[in-house]
C-alpha cells in the first residue's frame, strides 16, 4: 500500500511536470493556418498569435527593395487580401501571381510581419513542361558562359 501510493504520487508529479512543459512549449510554438479572408474576419483576436497564411501574391502589389532586402506585397485567396511585410531573402519561386505561404504575426500597423516566406510548389519534384524552365535566363545553358 505504502509503495503503490509512493509510485502514484511520483507518477503524478512526473506527469504534471511533463504536461507543464508541453503546454508551455505548445503555447509558444503552435502555428495556425489561415487564409487572408479568415484573417480579415478574426483580425482583432489574432494579434498575438503566430500564424501561417497562404494565398497568391496579388499582381502589381509587390514592392521590393533588393538592396535592403525588404518586400511588401499583398496575399489574396480570391475574396480578400492582406498586406505583408518581409525582410530577408524569399525563395526563388516567390513572385507575383504565384502561390506563397508566409509565417509571422500581425504588427501594430495591421500589416502581417512575415518572418518566413515559403513558395508553394504544386508537386515538389515534378518535371517541368518544357524542361528548361528552371534555368536562369541570362546564363544560356549549353554554351560556354563563364564570366566574372
Amino acid at each position, binding site marked *: 500500500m505504502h509503495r503503490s501510493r509512493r509510485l502514484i504520487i511520483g507518477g503524478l508529479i512526473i506527469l504534471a511536470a511533463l504536461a507543464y512543459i508541453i503546454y508551455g512549449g505548445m503555447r509558444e510554438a503552435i502555428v495556425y493556418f489561415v487564409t487572408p479572408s479568415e484573417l480579415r474576419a478574426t483580425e482583432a483576436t489574432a494579434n498575438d498569435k503566430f500564424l501561417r497564411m497562404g494565398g497568391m501574391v496579388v499582381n502589381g502589389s509587390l514592392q521590393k527593395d533588393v538592396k535592403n532586402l525588404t518586400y511588401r506585397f499583398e496575399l489574396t485567396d480570391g475574396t480578400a487580401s492582406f498586406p505583408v511585410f518581409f525582410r530577408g531573402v524569399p525563395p526563388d*519561386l516567390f513572385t507575383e501571381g504565384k502561390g506563397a505561404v508566409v509565417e509571422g504575426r500581425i504588427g501594430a500597423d495591421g500589416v502581417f510581419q512575415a518572418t518566413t516566406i515559403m513558395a508553394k510548389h504544386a508537386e515538389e519534384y515534378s518535371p517541368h513542361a518544357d524542361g528548361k524552365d528552371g534555368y536562369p535566363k541570362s546564363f544560356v545553358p549549353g554554351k560556354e558562359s563563364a564570366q566574372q
Partner: protein
Amino acid sequence: MTATLGQTSIVLAFLFAIWGVVSPILAYRGHSERYFAFTRIAILAQFVLVTLAAAALIYGLVTTDFSIRYVAFNTTRATPIYYRVTGLWGALEGSLLLWEWILIIFSGLVAWIYWDRQRETIPWVLMVFSIVSAFFLGVIAFISNPFETISPVPLDGRGLNPLLEDANMMTHPPLLYTGFVGLMVPYAFAIAALIRGKLDEAWIVATRRWTIIAWLFLTLGNLVGAWWSYHVLGWGGYWAWDPVENAAFMPWLPATAFLHSVQVQERRRMLKVWNLSLIIIAFSLTIFGTFLTRSGILSSIHAFSSGPVGGVFLVFLAVVLLGSFGLLAFRAELLKGQPEVDSMVSRESAFLLNNIVLVSALFTIFLGTIFPLLSEAIAGTQVSVGAPYFNSVTVPLFLLLVFLMGVGPMIAWRRASWDNLKRNFLWPSAGALIFAIALFFWKVRDFLPLLGFTLLAFVVLTIFYDTGLALRARRRIAGEGVFRGLVTLARRNQRRYGGLVVHLGVVLIVLGIAGSMAYSVEREATMSLKEHLNIGRYLVQFEGLKGSQQPTHFRVEGSFRVFHRGEEWGVLSPALKFFPNQQSPVGRAVHQSTIGEDLYLILSGFSELDKNQATLKVLVRPLVVWIWVGGFVIVLGTLLAILPLGKTPREEA
C-alpha cells in the same frame, strides 16, 4: 525480362514467408517436429529470392532499363553509375525493397548463427521475421511495386531528386534501415520468449550485441542525416524537427532506454515488463516512422488518399501493437513478483530515471509530430508545430539526461552509501562548479548554455576521475603505467569502458548542439562587386559570379573572399544548381570549419541582368564540428564494447 524476374522472385518470396509463418504453428499444433525446420528453409529461400529481386532492380537501374517505371522515374542516361545504384533507395518502391532486403539479410544471419545454439527458440524468432517479411513482400508485390512496367518505353528517364545526388545520401538510408531492422532482432527474441513463456534473461543476453549494433546504426543514420542536412540542404542547420527527422529519431529514444534498462534486468531481475514494452515500442516506432514518411500524411493531411501504402502500414502497426501487447498481457502471470528498488539513491533508480526521461522525450516528440493530424481531425483547425516547441520541451529533458549520464555509471547498485557518493562525485562536482564559475567570468551567462556546459563538464570529470582511480589501483597492484593500465582496464571490462567512451561521444555531440543552438549568428545582405559584410570576426567580400555547364545541371557560383581577423583565408564559392527537370534551383552551400566555429555561406540569389549583384546569407555556427567528431567517438566506443578483443573474463555492466 528483368522486371519479370524481379516480380516473380518477390511473389515466390511472399509465399515462402507465409510458409515460414504457418509451419511453426503447425508443428506446435501437434504435427511433426519437422515443421519447425521449415522456418529456416523459408527464411533462406526468402533470402535468395529477395536478393535476386534486389539484384534485378539494381541491374535495371544500372542498364537504364526504362521499361521499368521505377527506373524511368529515378535515373536518366546521364546519371553516373553510382547514383544509378543508389536509385534503389531514391524513392518509395525501391526503398521498401531495400528495407526488405536488409530485413531478410538479418533474418538469415540470425538463422545461421543461432539455429544450433537455440533450437527451441529460433523457429519462433524466425516466424516473427517471416511475419514482418510477409508484410513487406505483400506491399512490394501488390501495392507499391518497383517492377511495374510502362509502355511505351520512354526515351530517357526523369532522374533522381537532385538533392539525393550526394555521397552521404548513399549511406544515410541504408544506415537508418539497418538500425530499424536491427531492432527487430531483440524484438523477435522478445516475442519468441513471450510465445514460449520463457521469460528469464536469456533473450536479453542472446541479443545484447545485436541491440548495441542496431543502436549504433540508428545513431549513425540520424547523424549522417543531420550531416547531409547541414552539408547539402544548405540552410545552415542540421536538424529542423521536421516530421521525417522525428520519425527517424523517435525509435532511438526507446532503443537507448532499452540498452540501459536491460542492464538492470540482467543484474537485478527487475523491469521485465518494462523491457518487453520498450522493445515492442521501439520496433513499432520503426513501422510508424515508415508510415509517417511514406504515406504523405505529413506534408498535408489531404495527401492521405494519394496512395494506399500509408493505410496498409497503419493497419500493420495496429496488428503489431495489439499482437505484441496482447501476448504480454497473456503472459502477465509469469512476469509477476520481481524484486523492488531498494533505494532512490542507487544505480537502478538512476537507470529508471534515465528511462523515464527518455520515454518522456519520446512522448513529447510524438505528440508534437502528430498534433497537426489530431488538431485537424478533431477540431478541424489546421496548425503546425514548429521547432520552438521541440526545442523548449526537449532541452530540459536532455539536460537532465546529461546529468544522469554522469551519475548512472558511477553510482553503486542497490543503495549508494554516503562514502560511495563522496568518493565518486565530490571532486567531479567541485571541478564542474569551478568550470561554471570560470565560464561565468568568460561571459557565458545565459542560464541554459551555462547549465548545459557545466553538466557536460561534470560528466567528463566523473568519467576521467573514475578511470583515474582505477588506473591508480592498476599501478599499485601491477605497476602498470597509464597506457598499459588503460588497455588492461578496457580489456577486462569492455562493456563498461566502451559505454563510457560512447558517453564521451554523446558529450561532444551535445556540446556541438548546445554551442550552435545558443550562439549562432547570421547575416544576410545583397552585395555589389567588391562590397563586403562583417560578421563576428569575419569579413566577406563579393568577387563575382560564374556560370558553368555541368554534366547533369547548370551551375551559378558566387566567389567570396573571406578574411578572418583581417587575415585572408581564401575564396569560398557557394553555388546554385539548376537542374533541367526541376522548378527551383538547388543551393550548394559551402563552409569552413574550425574547432571553434563554422563559417557557412549560402548563395540565396543573384541579379540575372548585370551579374554584378549577389545575395548572400552568412552564418557563424560555433562548435558544430564536435557533433561529427562525437559521432566518430561513438563508433569507437561501440566497437570497444562489442568486439571480441581477446580475454573477457566476466562481462559486467
